[in-house]
């Protein structure tokens, strides 16, 4: 786990004149799960959204510094943000399947936007993505039904399948289980552990036990700063920084 797949360089994020993220340098390694923890408002979700250029879609938002994906900068006039978001996929807090589309169309939507494929190729890719998201067996007989017919947990795995269909280098997950029940949460966590052999995952979570269960490394954010990052086991048993200790033991936040 020594290959850096994604790194932020002195990354700052602003909304109008307010600086939310204060110059963060952080490397993410190939096939790891990196958990980002911190109290509400610490900037971890904003940081995540900067990593695939979603922050800039907010009115008044801008970014300074750089994010480098496989040695190529993602910020620049010549870079297409749509292609960046295909390479760095995002799964959100609440499942957000396209409500007017079928299950099949939801998964195929990203591919249709960025690639041209024959019908049979498309079917293969959709099936593969649904299998990777551990959803295929549950939906294989109803691919033409509305995505909204699925349960919350299934919808979230459908969103993961949609992101996986375009074979992203990195998958960003912003509290992906906070709206799910414990059984659906366990399925998504199991999926994360399986997916790290195929991709690299960065997950924002408020659930410390979830970070401990699924991640290789953990990064602790506070007031827009990266306070500490390191091996998850060390972070949760013997953090180096007092602020980290105080946060994970519930003394604030």
């Amino acid at each position, binding site marked *: 786990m020594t290959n850096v797949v994604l790194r932020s360089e002195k990354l700052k994020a602003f909304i109008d004149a307010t600086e939310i993220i204060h110059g963060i340098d952080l490397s993410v390694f190939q096939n790891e799960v990196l958990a980002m923890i911190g109290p509400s408002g610490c900037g971890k979700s904003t940081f995540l959204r900067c990593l695939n250029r979603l922050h800039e879609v907010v009115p008044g938002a801008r970014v300074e510094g750089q994010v480098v994906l496989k040695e190529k900068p993602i910020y620049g006039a010549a870079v297409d943000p749509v292609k960046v978001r295909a390479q760095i996929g995002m799964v959100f807090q609440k499942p957000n399947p396209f409500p007017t589309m079928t299950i099949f169309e939801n998964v195929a939507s990203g591919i249709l936007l960025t690639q041209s494929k024959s019908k049979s190729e498309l079917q293969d890719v959709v099936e593969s993505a649904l299998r990777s998201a551990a959803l295929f067996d549950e939906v294989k007989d109803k691919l033409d039904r509305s995505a909204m017919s699925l349960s919350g947990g299934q919808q979230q795995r459908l969103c993961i399948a949609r992101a996986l269909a375009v074979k992203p280098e990195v998958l960003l997950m912003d509290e992906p289980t906070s709206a799910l029940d414990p059984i659906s949460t366990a399925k998504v966590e199991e999926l994360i552990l399986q997916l790290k052999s195929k991709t690299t995952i960065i997950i924002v979570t408020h659930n*410390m*036990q979830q970070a*401990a269960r699924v991640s290789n490394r953990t990064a602790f954010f506070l007031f827009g700063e990266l306070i500490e990052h390191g091996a998850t086991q060390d972070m*949760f*048993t*013997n*953090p180096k920084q007092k602020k*980290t*200790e105080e946060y*994970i*033991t*519930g*003394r604030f936040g």
Partner: protein
Amino acid sequence: MQRQIDLEISQLKGMILAMGGAVESAVEEVTLALKDRNLSRISRVKDLETQINQFQIQIDERCLKLIASQSPLAADLRTILAVLKINSDLERMGDQTINISHNVREYLPEPPLPLINVVLEMAIAVRTMIKESLDAFIRGDVEVSKRVLLQDDAVDEGKNKVFTEATELMKQNPDYVDGGLDLILIARNLERLGDHATNIAEDVIFVSTGQDIRHGGFRE
């Protein structure tokens, strides 16, 4: 903000201290029984060991509940892990005092051996180790823990001396065989008590620093 877990951990430490106090008393009783050749002192050891066993069950139950309800992390997690391990060490120490009480009962009718002073010195050193390791746990005192680790060498030397010299005495005079074997077993159990106190001192260093110094890590 006072956290519920702080209160629970404080109560657990109090229970460990009370359990450790019972272990110290049991060691004192067997030592005085040996020193004063007073068998009546041994009768209290069984009661103390019963108390120690009850503490063990209560502490395990409270730790289990605390882990299940609070999902402790970092220093909280290390402290609760240490409480569980110290609980186990103290329970074994209670068993060892029972072993010693049996050996003392066997030894006292035998002709006294000059080696008895070495054994009594070991017992005093072990009691100090137990007391200091528990004090260090309550206060999170790494320096006192390190001192306990160094004291264990003297206890080990005492055991080796008893083994060597008792063996020699038994070879020279068969009358010393039964008493010599009893002293060897007492020394062996005292040495094990010292090892458990060492475990506690190592746990204190783990709780305070996060460093695992078991199995030679301290000397490195």
